[in-house]
C-alpha cells in the first residue's frame, strides 16, 4: 500500500490508560487494514488489532523522555496510546495512519477487502438473511388499505428512499408525485410501521416545502388518505421532531411545517429534538468526560450534565413514547418528519416501534428494524459515521442515540428484551467499522450502484451466529407486561450513563462479575440437564444391556459439568486495583504518595472479532501471587489480578 510509510516499528510502548505506569513493550505493525501491536510478553502473546476505519483521529503529543507519544482515538471509544522511540518513526506512523484512517473512496473500505472463507453462494445468501418484504407481511401488509407502490422502483421520485414503499391504496400515482415535489428531497409520506390490531400507522416523510404560505393539494390529499386508511380514527397526528424555532427558521428557506388549517383533521405537534450538530457536540463532550483520567465525582457528574447528552436521549425517548402511545392507546396514525426525514425521524420511528412491538425486542427483530428504518430509508450512514474523508459537519451520532435509547429501555425492562447490551455494542461497533457492507453508503440506490451485495458481506448472519453471546437470560416473552406497549418512565434519574459503551475498553471500570453472564451459563447448563434428563428417562423406559453401556459413558460427562455454572465469565477480566491514593498532593513533609510498580504488564484487547482469545490471554498475567490461585476445593478459581504494588513507598524518600 502506497500510504504505509512505515510497516513496522520496534520497541513501541503501549500505555495502559488507567495507569500511565503500566506499560507494555512490543512491535507495531501497519497493514493495509489494521494497526497491529504485538507485545513482547514473557509467555503470553498479546495482540492489539485496530481497524483503520475505526480510527477517529490520531494525535501526536509532546515528546517525553521515553519517546514520542501517539494517541489514537477510535470511533468505538477506544483510546490507545503508543510511545514510539524515534521521532521520525512516530511521524511516519502518524502520517500513514492519518491517511489510512481517512479513505477517500468507498473502494478503500475494509468491507471490500474483507474476505472470510465463504463461497459466493454463501455470501449472496447472507444478504437474504433479512427480508423486508417478510417484515411488512409480518405486520399484515399489504392489505386492503395499504399496498406497495412501484413508483420509486428506479429511484426516480426519491433517490434516498428504497425501491419498495407502502402507501394507502387510495392514493394515485400523480398524488404521490405531487406530494413528493412538495417535500424536501422528494421524501413523501410513506409507511414505516403498521399496527395490525387497530390499523394505526406510523408514517414518515421530510418537511413540507410550505414556506410561509405555500400549499400543495396532492400533499394534503396524501395525508388525508393516510388518515382515512385508519378507519377507527377521526384525525391524525403530524409530529415535527424539531424544536419549533428550527422549523420556523426553515420557513424562510421555503421549507417549514404543515399548517393545521390547510390539512383536514391533523393535530400538529413539535417535539424539540436538537439537530445533528448539537448532537455531535454533545457526544464530543460526553466522550471527553468518559475519557477523563481518574476524575473526581464532581468533575464526572458536572461533565455529564454539561454534555447534555442524557437530555437529548430523554427527548428522543419522549418523542418515541408520544408516538407509541398515540398508536397503541389512541389508535391514531402519526406522520413523523424532521427536516430531511432521515435522522431524527429514523430515531423516533424506531424507538416508537421498539416500544410498540415486542418483535423488535428480539434479536432478529432489532436487525430487521435497523435494516428497515435506517438502512433502507436512507439514513446517511457514510456521512454520519464519517466512513470516508469528508465534511466533518455531516458526522453525527444519530444511530448511537437510537441504540442508547434501546439500552435505557433495557435498564428499565430487564425481562422485555431478548438481546443484551453486548448486542447493541456489537451493532454500534460494526456501524462504524466498515467491516461489512450493510452500513456503507447513504442510501439504497448508492449501495446498488456500488454493488455492495456483490462485493461485500452482510453483518446480520454473522451476528446471528454469535446469538448465544447476545442473549438476555432474563428474557420472558410470555409475561404480559413484556407484551405490547412498554411504558417507560422518563424521570431524569431513569436515564443513566452507558458505561459499557463509552468506557467499553476500560475494563477496570466494569463489575468484575456479571450477573447476566452467570445466569446465561446456568441456563445453558439447564438446557444440557434437560437433555440429560430426557435421555435418562428414555433409558429407564427402555431398559436393556445396550443402554446400560451408554449410560456408563454418560456419567463422566455430567460430573465435569457440576461446577460449571459458578464460573462468572467476566471475572476473567483482569481486576486491576486503581490508584486509590490518586490525586493526593504529596507536598506536606510527612506525607507521601503510593506509587505503583513500574513494570506492570498491560492487558490488551483484540479488536472485535477475536475478543475471546484476548480475554484468555490477558486473564492472569500479573498475579504471581500464589495465594490468590488457591481456591476452595474444586471451584473454578476467579482469576482476579491485582496489579497493585506500593513497593516504592518507602524508597520514595
Amino acid at each position, binding site marked *: 500500500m502506497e500510504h504505509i510509510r512505515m510497516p513496522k516499528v520496534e520497541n513501541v510502548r503501549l500505555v495502559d490508560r488507567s495507569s500511565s505506569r503500566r506499560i507494555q513493550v512490543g512491535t507495531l505493525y501497519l497493514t493495509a487494514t489494521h494497526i497491529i501491536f504485538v507485545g513482547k510478553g514473557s509467555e503470553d502473546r498479546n495482540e492489539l488489532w485496530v481497524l483503520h476505519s475505526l480510527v477517529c483521529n490520531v494525535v501526536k503529543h509532546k515528546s517525553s523522555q521515553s519517546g514520542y507519544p501517539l494517541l489514537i482515538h477510535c470511533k468505538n471509544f477506544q483510546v490507545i496510546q503508543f510511545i514510539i522511540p524515534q521521532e521520525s518513526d512516530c511521524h511516519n506512523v502518524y502520517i500513514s495512519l492519518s491517511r489510512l484512517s481517512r479513505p477517500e473512496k468507498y473502494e478503500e473500505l475494509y468491507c471490500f477487502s474483507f474476505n472470510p472463507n465463504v463461497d459466493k453462494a454463501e455470501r449472496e445468501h447472507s444478504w437474504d438473511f433479512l427480508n423486508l418484504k417478510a417484515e411488512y407481511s409480518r405486520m399484515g401488509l399489504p392489505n386492503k388499505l395499504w399496498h406497495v407502490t412501484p413508483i420509486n422502483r428506479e429511484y426516480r421520485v426519491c433517490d434516498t428512499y428504497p425501491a419498495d414503499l407502502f402507501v394507502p391504496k387510495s392514493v394515485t400515482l400523480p398524488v404521490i408525485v405531487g406530494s413528493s415535489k412538495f417535500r424536501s428531497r422528494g421524501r413523501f409520506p410513506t409507511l414505516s410501521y403498521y399496527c395490525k390490531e387497530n390499523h394505526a400507522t406510523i408514517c414518515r416523510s421530510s418537511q413540507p416545502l410550505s414556506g410561509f404560505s405555500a400549499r400543495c393539494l396532492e400533499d394534503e390529499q396524501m395525508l388525508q388518505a393516510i388518515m382515512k386508511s385508519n378507519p377507527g380514527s377521526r384525525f391524525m397526528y403530524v409530529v415535527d421532531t424539531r424544536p419549533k424555532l428550527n422549523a420556523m427558521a426553515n420557513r424562510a428557506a421555503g421549507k417549514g411545517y404543515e399548517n393545521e388549517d390547510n390539512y383536514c383533521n391533523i393535530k400538529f405537534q413539535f417535539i424539540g429534538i436538537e439537530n445533528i450538530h448539537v448532537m455531535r457536540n454533545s457526544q464530543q463532550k460526553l466522550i471527553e468526560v468518559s475519557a477523563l483520567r*481518574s476524575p*473526581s465525582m464532581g468533575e*464526572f*457528574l458536572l461533565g455529564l450534565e454539561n454534555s*447534555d447528552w*442524557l*437530555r437529548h436521549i430523554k427527548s428522543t425517548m419522549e418523542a418515541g413514547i408520544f408516538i407509541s402511545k398515540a398508536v397503541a392507546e389512541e389508535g391514531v396514525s402519526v406522520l413523523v418528519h424532521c427536516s430531511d426525514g432521515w435522522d431524527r425521524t429514523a430515531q423516533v420511528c424506531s424507538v416508537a416501534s421498539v416500544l410498540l412491538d415486542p418483535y423488535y425486542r428480539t434479536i432478529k427483530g432489532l436487525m430487521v428494524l435497523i435494516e428497515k428504518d435506517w438502512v433502507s430509508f436512507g439514513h446517511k450512514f457514510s456521512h454520519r459515521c464519517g466512513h470516508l474523508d469528508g465534511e466533518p459537519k455531516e458526522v453525527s451520532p444519530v444511530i448511537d442515540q437510537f441504540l442508547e435509547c434501546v439500552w435505557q429501555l433495557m435498564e*428499565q425492562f*430487564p*425481562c*422485555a428484551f431478548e438481546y443484551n447490551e453486548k448486542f447493541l455494542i456489537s451493532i454500534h461497533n460494526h456501524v462504524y467499522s466498515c467491516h461489512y457492507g450493510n452500513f456503507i453508503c447513504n442510501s439504497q440506490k448508492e449501495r446498488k450502484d456500488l454493488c455492495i451485495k456483490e462485493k461485500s458481506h452482510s453483518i446480520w448472519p454473522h451476528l446471528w451466529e454469535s446469538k448465544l453471546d447476545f442473549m438476555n437470560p*432474563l428474557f*420472558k416473552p410470555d409475561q404480559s*407486561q413484556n407484551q405490547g406497549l412498554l411504558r417507560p*418512565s422518563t*424521570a431524569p*434519574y431513569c436515564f443513566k*450513563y452507558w*458505561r459499557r459503551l463509552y468506557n467499553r475498553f*476500560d475494563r477496570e*471500570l*466494569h*463489575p*468484575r462479575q456479571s*450477573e447476566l453472564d452467570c*445466569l446465561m451459563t*446456568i*441456563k445453558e447448563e*439447564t438446557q444440557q*440437564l434437560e437433555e*440429560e*434428563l430426557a435421555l*435418562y428417562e428414555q*433409558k*429407564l423406559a427402555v*431398559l436393556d*444391556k445396550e443402554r*446400560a453401556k451408554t*449410560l456408563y459413558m454418560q456419567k463422566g460427562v*455430567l460430573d465435569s459439568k457440576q461446577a460449571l455454572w459458578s464460573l*462468572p465469565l467476566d471475572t476473567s477480566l483482569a*481486576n486491576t*486495583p*486503581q490508584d*486509590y491514593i490518586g490525586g*493526593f498532593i504529596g507536598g*506536606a513533609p*510527612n*506525607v*507521601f504518595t*503510593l506509587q505503583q510498580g513500574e513494570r506492570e504488564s498491560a492487558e490488551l484487547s483484540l479488536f472485535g472479532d477475536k475478543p475471546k482469545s484476548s480475554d484468555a490471554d490477558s486473564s492472569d498475567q500479573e498475579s504471581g501471587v500464589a*495465594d490468590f490461585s488457591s481456591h*476452595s476445593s474444586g*471451584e473454578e478459581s*476467579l482469576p482476579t489480578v*491485582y496489579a*497493585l*504494588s*506500593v*513497593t516504592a513507598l518507602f524508597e520514595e524518600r
Partner: protein
Amino acid sequence: MELWGDGDAGEAEHPPAAPPDGEVSAVLVLEQAQVRDELLEAGSCHLRIVSAASPHRERASAGLFPETPDAADWMSQLNRETRSLTHLGCHLVLDSTPRDWRLLSDVMLWSEHAARLNPFTQLKKLSTFVRVTASPWMEVAIKVAILIQICLKSVAKSNTKEWKRGSGGVRFLVPLNIMEFAELIKTPRVDGVDNTEELWLLHANIDSTEKRFVGSLGTIIVKCKDLRVIQLDIPGMEECLNIASSIEALSTLDSVSLMYPFFYRPLFEVIEDGWQLFVPGEAFKDLESMTDEWRLSEVNKDFSVCPSYPSLLTVPKDIDDESLCKAASFRHGGRFPVLSYYHKKNGMVMMRAAQPLTGTNGRRCKEDEKLINATLCAGKRGYIIDTRTIAVAQQAKARGGGFEQEANYPQWRRIHKAIERSNILQESLIKLVEACNDQSHSMDRWLSKLEASNWQSHVKEILTTACLAAQCIDREGASVLVHGTEGTDSTLQVTSLAQIILDPACRTIRGFEALIEREWLQAGHPFQQRCAQSAYSNGKPRSEAPVFLLFLDCVWQILRQFPCSFQFNENFLIMLFEHAYASQFGTFLGNSVTERVKLQLSQKTVSLWSWVNRPQELERFLNPLYEPNNLVIWPSVAPQSLLLWEGVFLRWNRSTKCLDEAYQEMVHIIEYNKELQNKVNSLRRQLAQLETEDSPLQTP
C-alpha cells in the same frame, strides 16, 4: 368495625371478608390511654394503615398477645400492668391465627368498655394527656398507644391531575368509623388501581410531620426515616390536629427506655438469641488459633478506661494493662489502639484508635508508641491512615488533638485522606434526598443536584480510603492503624469496609452480622445519636449523621461490582438501614456497650439477629448467585463505576415492578437448575443401580 367481626368466636376465627365492591369499608381509629401515678412511661408503637384486601402481611405477625386466653383476666391484667396495656396498643394487630383473632375480639370488648365513646373523642383526650405529661410538675404516667387502622379500598381514579403528589399515587376514599370520612393519599408508587396494601409505621420511623389545612380538610404529611413520604388527608380540623399532635408526641420520645423495643415481644420463638451470638471471647478464640501475639484485656471491664469501648479488648500480648491505661489517656475519648482485623494470609493487622492528644506542644506518650510498635514485625514498617486531611488534623491540635509526629513514630508512615465529618454528611444526605424527591422532570436539575449533594463523592472517598487500607495490608504486607478524630465514625467505615474487601468471611450473612457487631456496635459507633434523625429533619442537626448509611452504600457498591461474592443481597442492606433508624429490636439502641449494659438491652429487648437469622426471614436476604469467593475483591472507585443506590434513595419514587420481575426470574432460573440437577442425579443413581443389577447378566 365489621372488619373485626362482632366478637363471636365462630366468626372471628376467619379473616375478615373484603368489603363488598363499591362500598368503602369501615375504619377504626383506636387508642388507649391510661394515667397512672408512676413516672412517665409512654410506649411508642405503630401507626398502621391496613387495607381490606390484604390485611395479613408479614409484619402483622410481629405482634404479641398475652398468653392468657380469658378476656376478663386479661383485662384486669391490663389495668394492673402498664406494660401489657402498651402491648395492647402496640400490637393491636390482625393476625391470621385463630388465637389472635379471639384475642382481638377481646380487645375490642375491652376498648369499647373502656372508651364508651367514639374514637375521636378519646383521641382528643389522648392528646390532652400528652400535653399534660409534657409539663414537668405533674407526676403522671401515661401509657399511650395509638393504632390507626384504616381499611383501604382503592377507588379507581384515572385523573392524574387530582393526585396530590407527583407521578405515582392512588386516591383512597375511606370513611372513618361510622360517620367520619378520611382521604388517604399514598405517595409510594402504585401501578394499578387494584393495588391495596397494608402499611405499618413505627412511630420511631417518623422523621418529621407537616400539617396543612384547606378549609376543613386537614392534611398530615408524614416523612419517615426510611425516606418514605405519606400524606394523610383527614376531614375535620380538630381530628387532624389531634392525630398530628399524637403522632408528633409519639415520634419524638426523648427517653430511650420508652422506645418501642422495650415493649416489643416477639411472636416468633427465639431459637438462637442474637444477644449471645457475637461475644468478643468467641472471636478471640479464632484469633488465638492463628497467632499468639495477642491477648484479651479486661482493663476496660467497668468501662472506666474508655466509656465507648467494650469490656474486652484485643491488644498486643506484650503490653500490660497499666500501659494501656496510659495510652488511653493519650488518645481522644480513651480510645487507645486495639486490634480490628488480623489478615490471615500474611499475618498483618489493622488497628483502630482515636486521634492522639498531642496538642500544640507535641505531647508524646511512650506507652502509646510502644503499643503500636508492638504490632510490627522486626524491621517492618506500618501505615497510619488518618481519615482527615492534613489541614484538619493540624487544626485539631489547637483543641488538644493532633496526629502522630513522625519523629516519635519512626516506623510508621502517615497517610491523610479526606473523609468528611458528621454534619457535612448529614447535609449531604438531606440534599440528596431532596434531589431524589424532586418531581420536576428536568434532566439538568437532577444531575446538578445530585452533584451538589456530594453524596457520591463521599462514597468514593470512603471506599478509596478503605481500599487503600486493604492495599497496604494485603499488597504491601504492612500493618495499618486507622483513626480520625474520635475514632467512632470514619474510622469504622474504613476498617469495616477494608475487612469486606479482604476477608471472604465478612461477605457471608453471619460474617457481616459479626462485622457490624464488632466494628460498629462494640466499637462504639453512637447509633442513637447518629440515627436520631434522617433526611427530613427540620431542626438543626446535633450529632446526626448518615455514617452507617454511607457504609452500607459502600457495601452495596462492592456488591454491585461483585454480585456473586456476597451471601446476602441488597434487601439485607436496606433492612439494616431501616433497623438502624427505627426498629422493634434493641440492637441499635444506645451509643456504646456501656449504655447498652445500663439499659439492660439484652434482657429487656429482642436482638435483631434473633429475628434475621430465622430461616423464614433469611430467605429474603439470600443472594441466589452467591458462590464463595476466597479472593480479595478490589472494587473500582471511578465515578463511572459508582452508582446511586436506587434501592434506598429512589425506593419510594420509582416502580420496581420490572426489577422485581427480573429478580424473580433470576431466582427461578437458578432454582430450576438446581431442581433439574437433583432429578438428573437421582435418575443417574437409579440407572446405576439397574446397571449393577444388569451386570451379572452381562458378564457371563
